[in-house]
Every structure is written in structure tokens, then in C-alpha cells.
């Protein structure tokens, strides 16, 4: 990182990631949520840019109204007061596979330049260096959610030129192939990291740096990317979190600073 520390800027790395991600949910309706940062992102969006957002959890909850920050996607606070609780079959078949989910959050140990994700192993499958959790619902979420938002920290070991294992498909690198897939999902549309925000090039499906967070340099980005990153021609600076966004994060969504310090 460059000289500017997050303390100087009045917000943490997590807070600018949360604020930037939540703006990507403007107008969204039905959102598949994960735990940790995505949970805070979605709750922030519901209070700011996406008032009608329905929080959907793969544990079978549609329209959650959590009264506390859940540690897991199966927290009891997600059940109490929800619009509906379904069996997991119904959630995956009728809601996800049938195409009702607008947007979903995914992350992973590794991502490649086309937004393919690895959550299965580091090293070889049969003799893994690190055994990761595996797919969970990620493989089908990547295929069926209309768009995928990725939020993860950026480093050489996570932004890799070649995945050790492709758990969840992103773009193939051949947009004609992608258009002919016939999936509900259009793949990842945005990646937010602790360094910047990315979109995906319409012509090539390649991850493209759109903005860098204040204080981050292009050398920081290159040093933490396993390929030569593609840059937007109008590369800009990520807007800083607003006072209201910071107030909501600190006072309402994560008052203990579990995920945001």
C-alpha cells in the first residue's frame, strides 16, 4: 500500500468496500446474501439505494429482516420476521434455478481475470495444499443469479492468472460463447476489493479496473494482481463513504466492528 493509511482518510478499507458495493445494488430487488461483508453491504443498500431489497439466504429465507448481525447464514435472527421460509429444495429450485434472483454476492480464495472463482482447493484436488470449503450453493448461484457481485481482498495469491480449481463459472473469455449459454445469469458484473472497483469488458469479458480507492496507486494494483490488469480509459477514483453510510455501518449494522474495523 502507498503512504496514505486508512486512519488518515477517516474510514477503514472494509468501510469503503462496503459503501462501494452497496451502491452497486441500486434498484435491486431480490438479492442472495452471504455472511460477513456482503451481509452488511445488503443491509446498507436496503437503508440507502435499494429500499425494496429482499434479502435471500441459501438457508431457505426469503425477505429476511435481521435484528442483529448474523455470524452465519443460518442464524435464527434471519428466520424471525422473514417474509417466507422455504425448504432448501424450494429455494434452489423455485427461486434460484427459475430465475427470480436479480443479484448475488460471491467470493473465493481465487478469482481469475474472467471472474471464475475457486472455493475448493489450493494445489491439486487429490493432494490439496489447502482444502477449502467447496461450492456450497456458489456453483448454481453463479449460473442462475442475473448478475454476480464479487467482494474480496486483493493479493497475488487471490487474483491469479490460472485457478487451481474452477468451482463457479464466470465469463469464458469468448463473449459469443457466453451469450449462447442460455443461462439466466450473465456472470460477474462487478468486483470490489480493498484497492479498487472493477467491471467486465463487454467485448472480451475481462475484468477491468474502473476506480482506485483514494491513496491507492496503479503500482499497488499491479503488485497485487496475478496478470497485467486491464485499465478503464477513464480510470477514476472510488467515491469515499458518505457520512450517512459511515453512520449506518458504525451505529446500526456493525456496532461491534466485527467486520468493518
Amino acid at each position: 500500500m502507498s503512504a496514505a493509511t486508512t486512519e488518515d482518510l477517516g474510514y477503514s478499507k472494509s468501510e469503503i468496500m462496503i459503501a462501494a458495493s452497496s451502491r452497486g445494488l441500486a434498484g435491486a430487488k431480490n438479492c442472495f446474501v452471504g455472511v460477513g461483508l456482503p451481509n452488511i453491504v445488503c443491509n446498507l443498500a436496503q437503508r440507502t439505494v435499494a429500499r425494496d431489497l429482499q434479502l435471500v439466504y441459501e438457508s431457505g429465507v426469503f425477505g429476511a429482516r435481521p435484528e442483529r448481525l448474523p455470524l452465519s447464514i443460518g442464524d435464527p435472527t434471519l428466520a424471525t420476521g422473514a417474509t417466507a421460509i422455504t425448504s432448501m429444495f424450494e429455494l434452489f429450485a423455485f427461486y434460484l434455478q427459475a430465475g427470480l434472483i436479480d443479484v448475488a454476492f460471491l467470493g473465493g480464495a481465487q478469482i481469475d481475470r474472467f471472474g471464475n472463482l475457486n472455493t475448493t482447493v489450493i494445489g491439486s484436488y487429490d493432494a490439496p495444499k489447502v482444502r477449502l470449503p467447496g461450492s456450497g450453493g456458489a456453483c448454481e448461484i453463479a449460473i442462475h443469479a442475473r448478475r454476480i457481485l464479487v467482494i474480496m481482498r486483493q493479493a497475488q495469491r487471490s487474483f491469479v492468472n490460472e485457478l487451481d480449481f474452477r468451482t463457479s463459472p464466470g465469463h469464458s473469455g469468448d463473449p459469443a460463447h457466453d451469450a449462447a449459454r442460455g443461462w439466466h445469469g450473465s456472470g460477474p458484473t462487478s468486483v470490489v476489493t480493498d484497492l479498487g472497483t472493477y467491471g467486465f469488458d463487454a467485448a472480451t469479458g475481462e475484468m477491468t479496473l474502473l476506480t482506485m480507492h483514494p491513496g491507492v496507486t496503479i503500482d499497488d494494483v499491479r503488485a497485487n494482481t496475478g496478470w497485467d490488469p486491464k485499465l478503464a480509459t477513464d480510470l477514476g477514483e472510488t467515491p469515499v463513504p458518505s457520512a450517512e453510510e459511515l453512520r449506518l455501518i458504525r451505529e446500526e449494522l456493525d456496532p461491534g466492528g466485527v467486520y468493518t474495523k
Partner: protein
Amino acid sequence: MSSKQTTMRDAVADLVRDGDTVAIEGFTHLICFAAGHEIIRQRKRDLTLARMTPDVIYDQMVAGGVARTLIFSWLGNPGVGSLHAIRRRIEDHDPAPLEIEEYSHFGMVCRYVAGASNLPFFPIRSYYESDIPTVNPKIVPMRSPYDAGDEVYVVPPLRPDVTIVHAQRADPSGDAQIWGLLGCQKEAAFAADRVIVVCEEVVEESVIRRDPNRTVIPGVVVDAVVEEPFACHPSFTQGYYDRDNAFYLEWDRIARDPETLETWLKEWVYDLGSHADYVEKWGAAHWDALRPGEALSGEVDYGRYA
């Protein structure tokens, strides 16, 4: 109906056999740790353990040496990180290798659906352009017989020898009512050859009949009913006790070190005679702290049509 009520010790002794495929289901909610502990205590061996999310319960059971094979779709400590005992078996073959068979969540759910519905396979739209089918040959692409351009993947039925589920309440013949997160317990129970229902409270049949929409598993598929309060700790029972998130975090520390884990198993499983001893050992203050506030559902009128 005759009573199937028994003790956890007898239910596990009678219905769980060495070499069985065992599914203790419950997605974060209603995970019957008490049954897992009894299986460890009775030193069952060579089990194939199936669960969508092996969770801390299968980390404990794998550490206890009961498992030969693991079938799963998400292998982690939810909200915390890794399951260290299982990782040691997979990464280092320490103390022995563990066979694994993995799916996605939807694939696992549909394996139970196929098992419960007496189908030879179940088609889903998943696994496209994923490496998962390359490491699990049971996940197979298939063309639609009605549209040659439409390809799905099929997964095989999963028919556990024994499924163990936990419910808020059940009557003595096994009619079980569940509320909150439903997971795939209904599917896993109907798919199984033998079913153990564990519950917080055994109630009169009339309590069940007052609210039939809430009956998730009917006694007709149930072999044994066990009343075992707090049986899901550190998982939770909606409306009865909260998830013990502090223990899930603590397990990360315990399981990182094999000796610490072995000491924990001795103190909290092997040296205790039953789950009642476990409940007593935690102490009343622990359970008081996990008790939720009240959020009643209100009532509906089914109507009387005499």
C-alpha cells in the same frame, strides 16, 4: 399408534450400525449434536457420513474415528473458517485418509429428493463449466429427451441407512413438527431406511393434530423418538435456544491442535454418560444466556367441519 419413544443410547445402539451411511441433517439450525456424541461414545466405525454442511458435529465425529467417507457440499465452520480435524484427514492423511464425495448444495438436496421419491437420478441446471464433475464422476451431463439442445446434469439418489433429525416437538409415534429453517430434513428422512427423530419435547398427539401444516416428518417413516432437550447445542433450536456462536469460534481453537481436541472429546463426550450430563456440565447459567426473547406466531383457524 404405539410409542416409539426411547433413549438416545438405545436408539443409536439399535439403529446405527458399523459401515452405515448416516445423515444427521439440519442446515445450521437443528443439528443434533447429542446424536453425534452418542455415536462417538458407542465407538461406531466405518460410517459414511452425509451432510450438506459437515459443520462442527462431523469434525467431532471424524476426530472420534467413526468415519471412513464424507459426502458433503460445503465443508466449513459457518462464519468462522475451517474444520481442522477433517482438513488434517484430507490434506495430511492424519491420522488416516478420508474418502470424500462432494456436490454443490443444490446437488446434495436433489440427491435426497431422488432418494425420497424413488427416482434413479435427479436433473438440475448446475455444474456447467465447473470442475466439480471432473472430480466426481457421479455428476453426469444428460441431454433432455425433449430438446437435444438442452443439457442438464444429473445426480444419483442418496438413500441413507439412517437419517437423524431434530424437531422442536414430536408425538410418541414420531410425528414431528419443525419451524424456522427447514433445511433438507424432510427429504433426508423420507430417503432413509431408518429414521431417528430427536426433539426438545414429546407432546400429545392432539398437539400435533391442532396444527397439521407444521408437521414436517410423519411418524410413518420414523423408527425411534428421543426426547433430548438442548440436543442441538452449539447449533440451535428456533424459539428454544440460540446458536452458541462463541462455541463455534472456540471450536476453531480446540480443533487446530489434535491433543486439545482429544482432551475436549474425553471431557465432553467419552467421560459423560449421556447428553443430560452434558447439559448439566455446561450449567444453568449457560442455558439461560442462550434463551431467546419471545416472538409468537399468532394463530390460524383451520375451521371445524363436523
